[in-house]
């Protein structure tokens, strides 16, 4: 009954979204405010309707209604309540429904915002977000229906269908298969919702850009409304990516957080174009430049969001992150193509209208620096896109799917990331309008000089590792340039206002949240870069088989194998857990318990590493293998990851800075731009 109600409301929501599209088009053509308002209200109604549908699916998951195929595939009776709820986005159809719900929430807010601030945009914003929503609802309702039941016939055939096939009877399995073991991680509570919130958020700037183009406006109104959406979406996408990295570090047991897996790259691509956009929109708002370019970036970001979902959900890519295979690929392909062609046509139609009003006056001006920033992001975008598409292209043209692995990405993107780090430090020191190398040099020379201490220290400590030395110098330079600029502002204020240092620091930040929120983000990036350099350029590792009581050495650490025991967990996992002592200079630092959880139903093991963590390093111990009968000997893979924890700290600083820049919490309203 509940499922029928859920499915019924899902169909109604689809019909409402189609109505909203029709009413928006008709309202625009007939110049009828009543119809446009009706379209807007219909768009808003989709949110409560989809909230209800999602709640119904959660109810089915929590109550263990295994006659529904989705519930059967992603849950079982032994799963704790929070996992049963998060199973909503643990499979194909549920995650598409969940994404639709998030999109409808964003749509409801956006159409209302358009109605209140830029009425002229309302029909176009409504049309764009509702077309996107209707596309996903079409898939969820008719192709990937989460309310499909499991049916069987007397001759043994099993079907998944919403309605009863002729001669079939309903199956009531006593238990489900359960959530994929790799997804049973606390990070999974937050990772997909954050990623989807980011994806959904980027749909809104796109819809306002389309509205601006369609209405023939050349001003910055669409940008003013889009800015908080873009920043918010970027922040959520960042949180999603970082949580995904943390999940990989905790669960996959490869000693790293980013493997340049296609699905990871697919989620990174919209982040890259989105990051370029959140920088580039500043130039338009300040100097009336990059008007066309901003539209291009927003179109690209939107298409890459859909493309990312397509890659993850269509099954065209094999990945440790792809948990679903499906036949929805062609539908996505057609949708992305149509959206891309339509939005580009719209841009070309308004091309002349969007000519820049300002001019680039100097190579060393801030607008030029932003231009280079965007070029670097575009370069990264093109590299990542090529890396993701190449396996598909090679399979199409040669019949063999080639692998584009981490080695290629690292070699290709490394110098570009280095360039971005340098720019990140320099850009805030540049001035709008005309500027010169001399002026810029005067502000840079001191931090540049001090930054040379970092490579000197790195050489003293770790020898000549040229990549590491260069990276550490760039990181230090970027950090010092940012800190010097903050210090300048604080000292200036202390002198001018006769304030104490803490008061001046607080006021400098609070009075200019955009700028100093951005600085916090940059400092977060610097810390992340430090973690990346630690793992990528200074990681050491060893794998050895030890008998009980034996030890291995790595970078001054002594790892001693003490014991190993096996037990059956209450949720059915077969757990094998080792006990190891970690010491340095004969001083015991910690006792770690790396383990391996085996899920017999999935025939899959999940590695849970033992970790000794501090700000300087991580000792990451993986239990690779053991003697099943005697447990006398076990194989351990030990990674020494210097500085890795700065990655997570940096991510927290970055997100805090982003929220601070947006104006949350307690910020005053963002000014018009």
């Amino acid at each position: 009954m509940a499922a029928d109600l859920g499915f019924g409301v899902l169909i109604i929501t689809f019909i409402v979204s189609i109505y909203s599209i029709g009413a928006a088009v008709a309202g625009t053509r007939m110049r009828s405010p009543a119809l446009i308002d009706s379209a807007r209200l219909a768009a808003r109604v989709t949110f409560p309707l989809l909230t209800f549908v999602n709640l119904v699916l959660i109810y089915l998951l929590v109550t263990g209604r295994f006659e529904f195929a989705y519930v059967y595939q992603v849950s079982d009776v032994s799963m704790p309540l929070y996992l049963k709820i998060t199973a909503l986005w643990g499979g194909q159809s549920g995650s598409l429904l969940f994404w639709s719900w998030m999109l409808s929430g964003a749509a409801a807010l956006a159409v209302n915002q358009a109605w209140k601030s830029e009425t002229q945009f309302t029909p176009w914003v409504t049309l764009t977000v509702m077309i996107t929503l209707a596309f996903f609802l079409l898939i969820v309702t008719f192709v990937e229906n989460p309310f499909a039941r499991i049916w069987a016939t007397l001759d043994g055939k099993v079907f998944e269908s919403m309605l009863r096939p002729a001669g079939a009877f309903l199956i009531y399995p006593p238990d489900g298969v359960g959530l994929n073991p790799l997804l049973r991680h606390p990070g999974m509570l937050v990772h997909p919702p954050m990623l989807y919130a980011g994806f959904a958020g980027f749909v809104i700037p796109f819809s306002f850009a389309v509205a601006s183009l369609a209405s023939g406006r050349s001003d910055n109104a669409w940008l003013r409304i889009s800015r908080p959406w873009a920043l918010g979406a970027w922040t959520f996408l960042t949180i999603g990516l970082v949580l995904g990295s943390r999940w990989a570090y905790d669960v996959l047991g490869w000693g790293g957080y980013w493997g340049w897996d296609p699905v990871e790259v697919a989620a990174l691509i919209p982040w890259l174009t989105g990051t370029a956009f959140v920088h580039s929109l500043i130039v338009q708002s300040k100097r009336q430049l990059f008007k066309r370019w901003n539209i291009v970036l927003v179109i690209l970001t939107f298409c890459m969001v859909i493309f990312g979902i397509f890659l993850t959900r269509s099954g065209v890519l094999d990945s440790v992150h792809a948990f679903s295979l499906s036949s929805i690929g062609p539908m996505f392909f057609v949708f992305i193509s149509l959206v891309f062609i339509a939005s580009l046509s719209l841009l070309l139609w308004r091309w002349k209208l969007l000519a820049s009003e300002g001019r680039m006056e100097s190579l060393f001006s801030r607008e030029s620096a932003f231009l280079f920033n965007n070029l670097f992001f575009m370069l990264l975008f093109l590299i990542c896109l090529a890396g993701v598409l190449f396996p598909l292209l090679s399979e199409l043209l040669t019949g063999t799917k080639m692998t584009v692995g981490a080695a290629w990405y690292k070699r290709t993107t490394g110098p570009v990331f280095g360039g971005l780090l340098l720019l990140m430090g320099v850009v805030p020191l540049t001035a709008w309008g005309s500027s010169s190398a001399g002026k810029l040099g005067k502000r840079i020379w001191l931090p540049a000089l001090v930054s040379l201490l970092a490579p000197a220290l790195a050489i003293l400590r770790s020898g000549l590792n040229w990549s590491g030395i260069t990276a550490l110098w760039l990181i230090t330079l970027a950090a010092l340039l940012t800190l010097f600029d903050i210090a300048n502002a604080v000292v200036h204020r202390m002198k001018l206002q006769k304030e104490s240092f803490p008061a001046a620091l607080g006021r400098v930040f609070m009075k200019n949240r955009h700028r100093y929120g951005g600085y916090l983000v940059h400092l977060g990036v610097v810390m992340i870069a430090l973690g990346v350099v630690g793992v990528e350029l200074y990681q050491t590792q060893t794998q050895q088989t030890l008998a009980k009581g034996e030890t291995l050495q790595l970078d001054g650490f002594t790892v001693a194998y003490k014991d190993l025991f096996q037990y059956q967990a209450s949720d059915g996992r077969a757990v094998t857990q080792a006990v190891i002592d970690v010491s340095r200079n004969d001083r015991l630092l910690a006792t770690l318990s790396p383990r391996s959880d085996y899920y017999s139903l999935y025939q899959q093991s999940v590695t849970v590493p033992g970790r000794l963590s501090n700000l300087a390093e991580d000792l990451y111990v993986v239990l690779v293998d053991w003697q099943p009968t005697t447990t006398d000997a076990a194989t351990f893979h030990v990674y020494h990851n210097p500085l890795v924890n700065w990655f997570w700290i940096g991510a927290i600083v970055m997100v805090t800075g982003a929220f601070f820049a947006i104006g949350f919490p307690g910020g005053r309203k963002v000014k018009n731009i």
Partner: protein
Amino acid sequence: MNLHMASSKVPNLRWFFSAFVMGLTAILVLAARVQAQTPQAVTDDDVNRIASQLYCPVCENVTLDVCPTTACDRWRTAIRAKLEAGWSDQAIEDYFVEQYGARVIGTPPRIGLGWLLYAVAPASAIGLGVAAYFVLRRKPGNQAVTRNSAPVPTAEIKNWREKLDRDIHKDEPV
């Protein structure tokens, strides 16, 4: 006389010294060869050094060193056996490519379609650089910037300073 005697003995010493050096070199070369031929114990790290460069042919995008499947365990054993047999890293990699195709290596070879992948970054960089050049070149600003050599009145400087202070404390994005 002494000098003459000394010079007449020099060739003998040269011969002796040359023979000594050649003999020593021969011994060292032979010792090195013997050492190279002596089977070295292959460690897990040796296996992982090669396995981390190869991708599992079954579960894609996972390198052999961290893949937990039985198939990958067998491939790691195969790598160990070949290392023990004296194969070089490159020979083992080539063997896997021959057996399972170029998909097992994470960096596609620079042949045929593979070149496309390697051309992307430089071609994109050049393309974007050219685009940036045209965007920057479009400015007449460089010529327009002129320096005013006339002294600026003190009052004007004061006004600028005040404006600067106001601007610094104005809410402005980075």
